[in-house]
């Protein structure tokens, strides 16, 4: 066949035309796909124009093959180098193009995981716990919600038919003498009866309590924190200082605090504590009923009858009212949260309405 008889000159003579064709085609390449097409046309494994020329080398004699091969290789390297250069050129152009055109809509919502939060009363309760922990109080919260008359009333100096029981309308369980505790004061009695280091006590007792009341200021279930300190030499001045420290930590030192005499069956003397109205600053408003003060906390010195009732139950004098004295205090967690957030209906806390709960971010 004529081709097989071709000389090295035949092959070499075709090279300028090939180079010319390549130049022209390369100049027309606009993108990566065009470049790939061009590479296939010249260097394709089966029918690339250069590849075919390499195939024809086999028909040449040794010396001719060497000369033509060298020429072909030079051209092939040149083609590859120029393809690569063009590829780099195109890529750089692409990036510039991308930078010119790629945009994000920064106003579209970001990808946030689900957002949860603790109940606003939990936040307040843990804050109260932390303040008292910092003052060396133990948090005692494992006492029962279903309790009995002794722990809820009798030991707290409210014998049967005591008028003070009217203040706390009680839920009773069917059959038997069990009731839902009306105050966390049951924690005082329960702790003193099982005190690991009698007669010393320094506790707060947070928990749910229950009373038969249901309106915008009363919920049949609500939460209290009770506090009790018992030791030799505890005074009313200690009670005052403790409450002041606590209220300053909770609300800030800018609000005035006043102490006035009051009445609770299980404390004597009994003291009510008012905080300068955080809504109006003391000038008088609807929230404070124009008084400038908000009732925040009831307290007093432990009534000796309480120690005596505990001693009777223990069968020995562990808390001798002549040897130890103590103070107790109690406050409503809802009241603190309502004051802090300006909430006017206590029942919102227990309605599980996410429109309400999701307003709080902690």
């Amino acid at each position, binding site marked *: 066949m004529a081709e097989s008889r071709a000389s090295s000159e035949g092959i070499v003579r075709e090279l300028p035309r090939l180079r010319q064709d390549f130049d022209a085609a390369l100049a027309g390449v606009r993108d990566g796909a065009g470049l790939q097409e061009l590479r296939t046309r010249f260097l394709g494994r089966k029918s690339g124009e250069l590849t075919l020329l390499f195939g024809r080398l086999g028909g040449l004699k040794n010396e001719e093959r060497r000369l033509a091969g060298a020429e072909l290789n030079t051209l092939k390297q040149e083609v590859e180098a120029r393809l690569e250069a063009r590829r780099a050129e195109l890529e750089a152009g692409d990036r510039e193009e991308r930078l010119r055109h790629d945009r994000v809509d920064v106003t579209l919502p970001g990808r946030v995981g689900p957002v949860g*939060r603790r109940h606003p009363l939990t936040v307040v309760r843990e804050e109260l716990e932390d303040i008292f922990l910092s003052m060396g109080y133990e948090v005692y919260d494992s006492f029962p919600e279903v309790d009995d008359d002794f722990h809820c009333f009798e030991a707290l100096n409210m014998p049967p*038919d005591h008028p003070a029981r009217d203040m706390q309308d009680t839920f009773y369980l069917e059959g038997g003498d069990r009731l839902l505790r009306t105050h966390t004061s049951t924690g005082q009695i329960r702790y003193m009866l099982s005190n690991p280091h009698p007669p010393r006590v320094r506790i707060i007792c947070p928990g749910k309590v229950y009373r038969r009341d249901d309106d915008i200021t009363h919920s049949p279930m609500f939460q209290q924190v009770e506090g009790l300190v018992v030791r030799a030499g505890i005074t009313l001045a200690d009670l005052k200082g403790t409450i*002041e420290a606590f209220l300053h930590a909770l609300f800030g030192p800018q609000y005035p605090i006043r102490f006035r005499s009051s009445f609770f069956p299980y404390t004597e003397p009994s003291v009510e504590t008012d905080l300068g109205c955080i809504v109006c600053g003391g000038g008088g408003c609807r929230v404070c009923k124009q008084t400038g003060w908000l009732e925040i906390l009831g307290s007093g010195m432990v009534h000796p009858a309480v120690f005596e009732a505990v001693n009777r139950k223990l069968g020995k004098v562990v808390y001798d009212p002549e040897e130890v004295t103590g103070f107790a205090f109690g406050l409503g967690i809802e009241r603190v949260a309502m004051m802090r957030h300006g909430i006017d209906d206590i029942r919102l806390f227990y309605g599980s309405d996410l429109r309400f709960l999701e307003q709080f971010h902690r």
Partner: protein
Amino acid sequence: MKVPLSWLREFVEFPAEPRQLGEDLTFVGLALDGLEGRGADAVLDLDVTTNRVDCMNVYGVAREVSVLYDVPLRPLDLSFPEEGPPADQALDVTIEAPDLCPRFCARVLDVRLGPSPAWLRDRLEAVGVRPINNVVDLSNYVMMEMGHPSHAFDLARVPDGRLIVRWARPAERLTTLDGVERALAGRVGVVGGTEGPLALAGIMGGASSEVSDDTRAVALEAAWWDPLSIRRASKALGLHTEASHRFERGADPEAPPAATARVAHLLAKIGAGAARPGLIDRYPAPRPRRATGLRLSRVSAMLGAPVAEPQARQILTGLGFSVKEQAGSWAVEIPSWRSDVSREADLVEEVGRHLGVDRLPSTVPASRGAEGLRPRQSATRAVREALAGAGLTEVINYAFVSDADAGPQAPPRLRLANPLSEEQAALRSSLVMPGLLGTLRANLRHGRRDMRVFELGRVFGATPEGPAEESRVAVLLMGAAAPHWSSERRAADFYDAKGVVELLGRRLGVGALTFVAGGAPGFLHPGLHPDVTEAWELRDEAAVAELELDTLTAAARAPVRFRPLPRSPAVERDLSVIGNEGMTAAEVEARVRKAAGELLKDVSVLKRYARPPIPAGRVSLTFGLVYQDPGRTLTGEEVQASVDRVVAALRAAGLEIRGE
């Protein structure tokens, strides 16, 4: 308790403006609730605590004012002229029940019935009492003034002029002044006549002997009733009056003669009649005044400030206590009107009240050491933080539930004897059912589609030892966790709830949790049972979980023990296992672990696939196996040997293997 200042000024002069007076009284325990009117017409509204029955009247408040400003308290004018035949000719009184009525006083008054003068009517209206006629008004006026209730019987309508104080008899009935006919069952005291009951003792008079326009003479009663008897009768009858309110808290046993005298005095003063000579006073066992000791050192020790003797003495005597000095302490006689005072602690309070708690120093008791949360409490907080961190919102539901919502096969709930409503008649035995379902339904009604909530709280149940309670944590998930415009919305399912449980396990470090199918309460199947979904009108699938909180927190591990970091690389191999649909991940994993040997460090499920090309009824699980030796780099041969053992074991178990 309303206190017109003009009335108060009859007994005490005070140097303060009304507002200031109210604030000063607030500090001694009579909290100012409101201030009406101005200047001479001002009326204080005081919040009198339930123990201070002695201050539920103008004179009692005047006594506090006199001590507050150290000014004299003027006595009540009890003088009056007596006219006509002796009272005991027209009226005879017998106490048949001294346990009900330790003292009964009466006077006979000749009256000219008519309206009260304007000043008297105005004062009654200022304290919230409706004027009726001069006789009834005077009785009310004296109650508001010095605290002791009295009652006027129309003498002409007291059969035979005889009053008999006794317990009501079975089946007796009485129509009271409010026009209600009452059955007097149980221990109800009455003032009876020869023809049946005339009045409810200490609570309300009867219609048959009511003072009317024809009345010419009255029998005026002022008694001292046993507080407990009045309280029980008032509760039994459901009838609470100004009189019963005072008697059940312990009125003044020495007041009845004064109360009748004060009515007689005012009757003469307004020119509406006169008293016949003589006080009928049945007081079979006079009660001596009580006394108790007081140590001044104790006052100082309780208050935390030194208290000067003259000051303490002035306060107590001003309040009507009489103080006698004995060796090292005082013997203090308690005035008859202070039923709330009985022991030393009470006297400490009296002194403290008037010294002013607000003026005491403030100290903080020394702490004996640091305190912290107990492990259970820290773990409980960690549970809340983990759940809030996982995007769940905490809710708190009432512990009361409707007993009707117990659901299929639920154990009996504790029931309340006096619930607020049938909807709140029982105590919950689960947080999810019905609590969180109620949360779900309420929020669905507000148009919510996506919801992630949790609750911590106690549940209740009956045990042979009585009521028991237990802390739980529960979660409910519905709809998408965090819907986003860039991805398809995916509704929560079982694995979301399980994931929350696993998250809790990891956050508390409780170690591996085992999940076993079955044993769930009837309302689950495996999500909410379709019956429940229908009964609760729920539109979407919801996934729930409920755990014993104390079990979870007790298993919490803290602190963590550090393990040295591995120095050699891990080798990962994947294995796809095809088996029948019933094949569980846990059983395959157990076979893998058993066959792999100790170089296998971890196995996890990478993918579950049950669509073509996997044939119907079959399922493919892809496991990722991680091999590692902390001390050296593993060779390809030893890993392959382990994988070969695993493959052989799985094939022996009838499973098909793809991949290695």
